């Protein structure tokens, strides 16, 4: 009986083998799809990288373009014996590097191509190309690098970098090897700039050689270049401002009040944007990110400064509008809180206009107290709430919505904040009076300062500040840029304050800012801060009627507003409005002024990539002053 079991077992063996034979017959002979798939395995998908959009300034000066570079690719399997010495000489690498790179490539795949050497510059490529036929298995893939011919506006333009795995996960559009904007305009206008990738499907034979396009290119797509951006930035003004700010720390923002267009925006110390490109980027990034002045930090939009006396304008306007003061209100020439008193330098007893002209601290402390402790609000808390709403309507304590990334809201203390410190109902104007003169817990960015100035220049409203004017010749509609944002102060209220600002320049604290016969309105600020010497501040707009430019200048730890900030703002306005500089001695004093003597500036040791002469922008000679890079220590 057990012998029959042998037949059963043999039968099971046979049945399984027969089932397998049937399956194999189906897979190998009947089913065609596996043969098709096999051919798909030898299709190669070649990405056609689009050219990233170019960036021009408001006058048409080219600020960012693409330079062709070449990635040397290798398919290890096809590499035949080669003259290693010659090859290494062509690429300027050592033999050890060659061996390492080959091993890395082999580890990735022996049959698929990988990058052997990144970003070979055109000059080197020209030499290499002639010899490339000798080196089987190597070919070049054209890529592009960003170039910044004006070498300025580093923070505003930003930079790009290769996408990493995390980014790809978050945004499936991107693939390994793509570039993406990481900061500045490159980031906020990434969608417009990046263009559209193209794809070619080519057939390759066993030896990985291209054998023409698949299905005569039926599935191929052509890359679409990114859109060109035209900025509101004035490259000449920008570069000039950077030159004035060299060896000084701080931030500047300049706006055309009638449109909200940013004319210049900078953070100092800055750096040559070309440093953040190509092979040297990692090294340069490390140097810049560790320097004591935080060159990579965008002070114009991210640094919180006490606005000092420049803040008196918004306070005065709010009080006027609430009819707490009038243009003729006079306060005693001192402000006493308990044993402390706020004093002022000697000047005649004044009403509002004069108080602005002489920047009288007791006057504005009194205005603040009159506002916050005013009986019509019941409590100081209510008074402060109304005051705070006024200030906020100037764009303080919140993001304005500029079309650049990483904008910060600034600090405008809330009621809860003071309740926490002093207890509910246990604080009033005399506790927090320093807000009235732009000190205390206030933190305002240079961009917000210029926005307040813009509201004053427009007599009551601002357009959202923005840096991109047109995209491929069409109006920038990516954001709502045509809406007037009104402050809570009525338009007719502004004149007395503007009168005061005009007197500041004509006969007050900022006489140094006067040039030509243009009517300039400004306000100095000398802000105390816990980090050392006072900050020097100046806000201004000109001309008084139909203002063309509003500017805010902030120079860290440099002393009086009139010493540094006012001359810088004045020179910028003069260049922008008159195309000339009538005060060369003043210009020389500012440019030569070195306020950063304590530490050596980074950048001196940075290797600067030389710009190719033929690629320097088409800018007219006379519109372009020789700009020394702010990184350089004279």
């Amino acid at each position, binding site marked *: 009986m057990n012998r029959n079991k*042998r037949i*059963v*077992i043999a039968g099971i063996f046979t049945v*399984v083998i027969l089932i397998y034979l049937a399956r194999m017959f189906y*897979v190998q*002979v009947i089913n065609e*799809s596996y043969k098709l*798939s*096999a051919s798909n*395995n030898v299709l190669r998908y070649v990405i056609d990288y689009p050219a990233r959009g170019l960036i021009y300034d408001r006058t048409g000066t080219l600020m960012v373009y693409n330079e062709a570079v070449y990635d040397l690719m290798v398919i290890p399997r096809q590499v035949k014996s080669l003259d290693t010495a010659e090859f290494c000489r062509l690429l300027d690498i050592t033999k050890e590097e060659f061996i390492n790179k080959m091993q890395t490539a082999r580890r990735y795949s022996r049959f698929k191509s990988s990058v052997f050497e990144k970003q070979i510059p055109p000059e080197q490529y020209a030499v290499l190309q002639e010899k490339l036929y000798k080196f089987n298995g190597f070919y070049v893939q054209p890529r592009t690098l960003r170039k910044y011919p004006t070498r300025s506006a580093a923070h505003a333009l930003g930079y790009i970098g290769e996408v990493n795995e995390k980014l790809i996960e978050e945004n499936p559009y991107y693939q390994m090897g793509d570039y993406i904007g990481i900061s500045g305009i490159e980031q906020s206008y990434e969608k417009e700039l990046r263009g559209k990738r193209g794809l070619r499907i080519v057939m390759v034979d066993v030896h990985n050689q291209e054998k023409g396009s698949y299905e005569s290119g039926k599935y191929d797509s052509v890359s679409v270049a990114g859109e060109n951006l035209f900025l509101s930035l004035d490259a000449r003004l920008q570069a000039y401002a950077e030159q004035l700010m060299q060896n000084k720390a701080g931030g500047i923002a300049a706006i055309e009040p009638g449109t909200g267009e940013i004319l210049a925006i900078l953070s100092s110390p800055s750096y040559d944007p070309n440093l953040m490109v190509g092979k040297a980027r990692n090294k340069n990034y490390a140097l810049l990110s560790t320097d004591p002045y935080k060159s990579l930090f965008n002070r114009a939009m991210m640094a919180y400064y006490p606005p000092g006396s420049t803040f008196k304008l918004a306070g005065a306007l709010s009080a006027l509008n609430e009819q707490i003061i009038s243009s003729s209100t006079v306060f005693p020439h001192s402000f006493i809180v308990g044993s402390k008193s706020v004093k002022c330098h000697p000047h005649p007893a004044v009403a509002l206009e004069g108080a602005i002209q002489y920047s009288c601290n007791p006057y504005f402390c009194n205005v603040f107290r009159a506002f916050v402790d005013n009986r019509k609000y019941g409590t100081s808390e209510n008074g402060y709430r109304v005051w705070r709403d006024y200030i906020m309507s100037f764009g303080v304590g919140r993001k304005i919505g500029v079309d650049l990334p990483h904008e910060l809201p600034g600090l405008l203390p809330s009621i809860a904040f003071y309740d926490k410190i002093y207890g509910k109902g246990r604080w009033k104007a005399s506790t927090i009076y320093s807000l009235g003169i732009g000190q205390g817990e206030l933190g305002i960015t240079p961009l917000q300062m210029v926005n307040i100035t813009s509201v004053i220049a427009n007599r009551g409203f601002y357009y959202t500040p923005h840096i991109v004017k047109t995209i491929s010749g069409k109006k920038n509609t990516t954001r709502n840029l045509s809406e007037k944002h009104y402050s809570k102060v009525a338009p007719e209220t502004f004149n007395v304050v503007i009168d005061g600002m005009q007197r500041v320049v004509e006969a007050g604290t900022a006489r140094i800012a006067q040039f030509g016969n243009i009517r300039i309105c400004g306000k100095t600020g000398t802000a105390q801060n816990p980090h050392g010497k006072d900050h020097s501040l100046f806000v201004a707009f000109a001309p008084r009627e139909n203002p063309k430019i509003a500017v805010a200048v902030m120079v860290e730890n440099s002393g009086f507003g009139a010493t540094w900030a006012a001359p810088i703002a004045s020179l910028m306005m003069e260049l922008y409005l008159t195309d000339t500089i009538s005060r060369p001695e003043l210009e020389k004093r500012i440019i030569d002024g070195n306020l950063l003597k304590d530490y050596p500036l980074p950048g001196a040791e940075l290797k600067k990539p030389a710009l190719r002469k033929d690629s320097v922008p088409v800018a007219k000679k006379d519109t372009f002053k020789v700009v020394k890079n702010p990184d350089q220590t004279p």
Partner: protein
Amino acid sequence: MRKRISIFQNIDWLSVSLYLILMVIGWVCIYAAVYNEDHSSILDMSQNYGKQLLWISGSIVIAIMIMIIDARFFEAFAYGIYGLVILFLIAALFLAKDVKGAHAWIEIGAFKLQPAEFAKFATALALAKYLGQIEIKIRQLKTKIISTLLILIPAVIILLQNDTGSALVFGAFIFVLYREGLSQNVLIISFLAVLLFVVALMVEQIILLGIITGIAALAILLMRKTRKNILTVLAFMVVAGLVVMSVSYVYEKVLQPHQKQRIDVLLGKQTDLKGAGYNVNQSLIAIGSGGLTGKGFLQGTQTRFEFVPEQSTDFIFCTIGEEWGFVGTSILLFIYLGLLYRILFIAERQKSAFTRIYAYGVASVIFLHVMVNIGMTIGLLPVIGIPLPFISYGGSSLWSFTILLFILLRLDSFRTFVFR
């Protein structure tokens, strides 16, 4: 001298020829699978085919040595060999390094050894020795328990090494037990249980329970004459119901994620061709693209361009499929079938129960390896990494199969000397 001559006269040359043919096919395929112009010398020891040549030479030496050893040695020391291998398995558990999640390899100098491979013939020997005793009857419960333990002990240790594939092979010994008197119901029931497990993964639990109840009701209706039958059917129904309900638990809690994925791929639940389904899909593409007659020696693009993973070990069958086509794969299957038939034939001509039982063990182990390995490459079974006998690259596997087969041939050549 007289004795040795008789040994070589009595050797089963047909089995030896099939064995040599399979090894040659294996080496040719390994050469094709990893071939590249840079390393075209067949003696290149940096390449798998160069090393395999070394393993093949070693196998032949081992085969000759086995033929020289006294045949009675294997029966006498069957338990000793078994015990030694168990010790090695336990040692591997603690000494072995982690290779792809499994602790299966012992390193002795530059030499790597996989004790699980050698546990197969050791278990076959021990089982043969135990069941070969005259007074032993498989119908007895004690016999069933001890033989099951003999099979399960190495299997469990190997499972603990995280080498599920090798542990699975021990299931093959069910054929041996069946041949030696185990009821055919056990075979049928285990087959049904596996089938039920697979179906339970594909069909909703509730529906399946309904179907089982339906079938049971129908059976009771047809066999209502005898009370015993009804009870049997009911018992079956309850067990089947329990199996179905335990499946989701086993699937979710016992199986590891990669094992679940492989089952999902097989059942078509998962079609991720870049993830878990990659191996099987590329393997099918390679085999399928071979067509009727194949692309020819060294012309396979799928396997050689590394589209197929593990192309010289677990997925070696792809190279055969791609380069030699349906003709090649069917010839290979028939060679295996021929070898299996021959071993069964050898088994039944033995006077010694020990040799017969061992022979069934050999046939079962080889069969299971062939079934699981090829079934995986053609997408009929989940991906389980066990080698294709005599063909896959690897010293441990080739040597253990050589030992497995040649102990049988040695015992067979001795058959005329056994008079009991």
